[in-house]
């Protein structure tokens, strides 16, 4: 039963992934991505990673997707969101080959490195299995021990890095807006950043 569910979810994840690439509008692409995240979350749940599944839903579906949808629906980017590339766009044989070779290489590396370890040595024995059952949700307090014990400093450093990035983005965006406002006369509405939006 779980196997059938896994293959269904895998099929859904791959289908939604293809939809992300093939969708004509960015909005549908992002919605396909959301479907792919839900399928992957189900796979994590089937594999016994409840905490990871919940985090996937909270962080990806809850936060990152909302960010994407905000950018698409509120900012109305239009032409500004198109990248200018040197070569022509579209599905060429070379690009398809790069993607295929990447995928095949990933499978080979994964299977070979899985085969290098002692075969079937990873099966949970005695202590690990019981501690996993005793801790309930995939050893959540073990994760917390490691995160706030041994890796405390990198954890805090990551948060400071994120804060610095946030401040830098605000500074960059503010400077761009000031430059734009100084070159052109201000709109009568008094909202210089709403210039391109239709009333």
């Amino acid at each position: 039963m779980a196997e059938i569910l896994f293959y269904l979810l895998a099929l859904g994840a791959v289908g939604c992934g293809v939809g992300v690439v093939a969708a004509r509008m960015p909005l549908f692409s992002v919605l396909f991505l959301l479907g792919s995240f839900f399928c992957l979350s189900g796979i994590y749940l089937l594999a016994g990673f409840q905490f990871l599944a919940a985090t996937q839903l909270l962080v990806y579906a809850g936060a990152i997707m909302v960010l994407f949808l905000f950018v698409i629906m509120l900012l109305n980017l239009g032409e500004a969101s198109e990248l200018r590339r040197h070569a022509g766009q579209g599905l060429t044989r070379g690009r398809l080959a790069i993607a295929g070779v990447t995928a095949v290489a990933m499978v080979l590396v994964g299977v070979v490195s899985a085969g290098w370890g002692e075969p079937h040595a990873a099966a949970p024995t005695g202590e690990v299995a019981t501690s996993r059952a005793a801790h309930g949700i995939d050893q959540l307090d073990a994760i917390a021990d490691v995160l706030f014990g041994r890796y405390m400093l990198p954890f805090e450093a990551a948060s400071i890095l994120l804060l610095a990035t946030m401040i830098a983005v605000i500074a960059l965006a503010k400077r761009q807006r000031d430059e734009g406002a100084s070159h052109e006369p201000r709109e009568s509405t008094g909202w210089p950043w709403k210039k391109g939006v239709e009333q």
Partner: protein
Amino acid sequence: MSVPTEHLYVLAAILFGTGVLGFLIRSNVIIVLASIELMLNAANLTFVGASR
């Protein structure tokens, strides 16, 4: 769930390949970012398969 770990790797590789393809062939910034997210998720799935 008694699915072999190799199948998880194959799924992750297919997703990663799709992400690479989207990164290469699309010109819209948002779709390119979505493709990168797809690749990151494939990497997460690989970690899950390796730790199972």
